[in-house]
């Protein structure tokens, strides 16, 4: 059983890591614990380093639209603080009430707003990292535009706690929208909705988010989100309705932009995964998803962003059937140049299916980066792609 430590300062994080490295202990960084089971189970876990006490919003430079925040601050708390000056971090990750800034960065969890504001990699402008040997390193800065030195904020984003502990991040912010509007469409079949999603992306509509929802037992849906002035929204709505003449408009479901979270609810055995595809291949992947689940009679659901990143849930039957379906889906994704990753799944599934898939020819380079920053393999050993 791993013990949990809760350092209260960057210096304490540094001391803990240095000592753990010296003693050969494996350390698992932890934020809100909402995504701790994503990826492979680490080979070893001696110490869980919780950022729970590093939870301050250190600076909100609202005139400059930047904020510096400690890693353990939850997304919701940060947003609450920023809203006092009419601003926000323009991202909508899973479970914002519990998920922390460090956690969403490490897991690179981006929501649908990415369509307009970019992913976390585009919003983070500075980072403080503590390496396994206790080195405290800053990279980036507090200004939006800055090309001095390597972009280590991007290296840390999506590194799943295997390179360093993120203790602070600096973000560029955006204003809260004047008004927002969501239009939802449905059709008996998925195809016309996928066509519409592509047509919207090819149009001059300035949507901020766009997602396709599909599943075995639900009518498929397409949600399009807008922000702006009343006049701007009215005219965009008119234009969208012209494009959407062949499908039915319905009221958006409750908490429409959080429907991704529902993929984590249901009965076991189940897996939750993510895939990437070219936008024009989203339809083909969803068809494959449906077909792969027909014969073994698996339940499935998916929420796919227009940009070509989606989450899915497969549910029911046995680990065997889940693994078979996953293999088929990964082959389908990779055939078209995409990827498939399993986030949540039973130990059994994760033992039999490489959750990350092939990292391609860059794996030796990944290994050298890991070797340079964490030569002793202290941080989350084995959790990431290729056994990193």
């Amino acid at each position: 059983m791993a013990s949990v430590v809760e350092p209260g300062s960057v210096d304490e994080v540094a001391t803990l890591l240095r000592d753990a490295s010296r003693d050969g202990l494996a350390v698992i960084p932890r934020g809100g614990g909402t995504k701790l089971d994503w990826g492979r189970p680490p080979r070893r876990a001696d110490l869980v380093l919780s950022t729970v006490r590093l939870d301050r919003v250190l600076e909100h430079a609202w005139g400059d639209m930047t904020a510096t925040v400690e890693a353990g601050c939850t997304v919701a708390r940060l947003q609450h603080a920023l809203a006092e000056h009419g601003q926000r971090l323009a991202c909508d990750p899973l479970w914002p009430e519990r998920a922390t800034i460090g956690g969403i960065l490490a897991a690179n969890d981006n929501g649908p707003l990415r369509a307009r504001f970019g992913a976390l990699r585009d919003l983070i402008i500075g980072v403080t990292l503590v390496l396994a040997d206790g080195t405290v390193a800053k990279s980036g800065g507090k200004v939006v535009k800055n090309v001095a030195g390597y972009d280590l904020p991007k290296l840390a984003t999506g590194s799943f706690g295997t390179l360093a502990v993120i203790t602070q991040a600096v973000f560029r912010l955006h204003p809260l929208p004047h008004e927002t509007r969501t239009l939802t469409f449905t059709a008996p079949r998925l195809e016309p909705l996928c066509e519409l999603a592509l047509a919207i992306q090819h149009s001059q509509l300035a949507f901020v988010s766009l997602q396709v929802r599909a599943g075995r037992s639900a009518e498929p849906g397409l949600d399009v989100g807008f922000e702006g002035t009343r006049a701007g929204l009215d005219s965009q709505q008119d234009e969208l309705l012209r494009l959407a003449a062949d499908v039915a408009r319905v009221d958006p479901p409750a908490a429409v932009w959080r429907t991704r979270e529902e993929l984590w609810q249901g009965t076991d055995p189940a897996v939750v995964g993510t895939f990437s595809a070219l936008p024009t291949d989203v339809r083909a992947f969803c068809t494959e998803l449906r077909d792969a689940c027909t014969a073994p009679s698996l339940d499935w659901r998916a929420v796919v962003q227009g940009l070509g990143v989606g989450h899915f849930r497969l549910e029911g039957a046995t680990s065997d059937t889940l693994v078979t379906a996953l293999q088929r889906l990964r082959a389908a994704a990779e055939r078209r140049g995409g990827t498939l990753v399993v986030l949540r799944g039973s130990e059994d599934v994760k033992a039999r299916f490489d959750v990350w898939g092939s990292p391609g020819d860059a794996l030796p380079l990944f290994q050298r980066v890991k070797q340079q920053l964490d030569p002793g393999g202290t941080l989350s050993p084995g959790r990431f792609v290729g056994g990193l």
Partner: protein
Amino acid sequence: MDTRILDRFRAIVGGDGLLTEPEQLRTYECDGLTNFRVLPSAVVLPTSTEQVQAVVRVCHEARIPFVARGSGTGLSGGALPIEHGIVISLTRMNRILEVDISNARVVVEPGVLNLSVTQAVWPHYFYAPDPSSQQVCSIGGNVAENSGGAHCLKYGFTTTHVLGLEVVLPDGSLVHLGGPTLDRPGYDLCGVFVGSEGTLGIATKVILRVVRRPALIQTLLAAFHSTNEAGAAVSGIIAAGVLPAAIEMMDNLAIRAAEAAVHPNYPDCGGLLLVELDGPAAEVAALMVQVRAICTSCGAWEIRLAQSEEERAAVWKGRKAAFAAMGRISPNYIVQDGVIPRTALPEVMSEIERLSGQAGLRVANVFHAGDGNLHPLVLYDARIEGQEGRAERLAFSILELCVKAGGSITGEHGVGEEKKAFMPVMFAEPDLDTMQRVRCAFDPERLSNPTKVFPRPRLCAEKTGPYQPHPLETAGIAQLF
């Protein structure tokens, strides 16, 4: 350079792909920053990824440092050759390999010019990063420098638009970073590579994202009595929750230079703002009313609105020509590229004025005002004894000022040769050391543009761990430089 090595290069790229005559090499002795010059031992001009790999392998075997070069428009000496090293010019790798409009992606070789990407997807799409040199600068160079431009305020930098890279590593091996789809499993080394200034390898193929052209683009030109008034308008616009596609500012000296060079017919004022809004027509119209009101309330005494493509081009012409225009009012000038938090603009401006008076040199100011990126242009006459040195010192004290204000020494031009000595002003030793550990993962032998960006090279064989001076350093055998 050893003729056997040259023969090997010749065997790879052919006789017309190898330059060794001093008068040929002179073309490559500097980039857009002309006060640093080094003659390379040779220049090779490969035409394919395989040739780049083969050339780099020879360099790796013989431990010859190399510098990759695109169009050579960089402003920080990033493509400055290394003594006894070679330059690998990518200008012959200039094919657009794939245009996939339905997925808004374009695959290019590094020698393709920035503007050619937009031309390939026009009229419905465009390539957003638009450095002022966009007609001549190459995508490979943009990737190395993480180039910005006026429109990155809304659209982001080169790094936002690079989805994937094919890279020849400094040992000649080939890797693919990122890819055609998003969020590929693994470290975001594509994000690390972009902006690494040629120190991690050579990009030989680039997957770019292009952007749908907005329905309406309008550019407002507003004349103020001072840059402070114009700066207040910028803050007002941002505070109102408007995110323009671009906000540019010029001071009087910059306006006069632009007028002399390309006659953009700007009003003769103390501070000029260009504010560009784009998006759906009704949204742009609504926000433009707001922007106009904010400008007026901050003291704008003349406002013009450019709507047609021609009118907009005329308004932008003066801004994009601003650097070159300095030649009309001064024999020599140094361009700087500091960044400050936007709110620090008034103090920083008055401090620049004070420093300029103290040095007895004029400073013209051109800003990407929306994101606080300053381009002070220090004017001097190299023929006058001592002026160049004074100008350099003034330029550097302006950078120090930017860092003190919480900013950066470079927003888009890169550190290169010019500003590497300034990195410790911004970063502590462990910060730089951590970046260099990443460099060691890519280039342990330090062959790829080895003397740039960092004030002091890390010896990659050093035991990793918290920064400690190298034994050679302590013994006085190796030196910091």
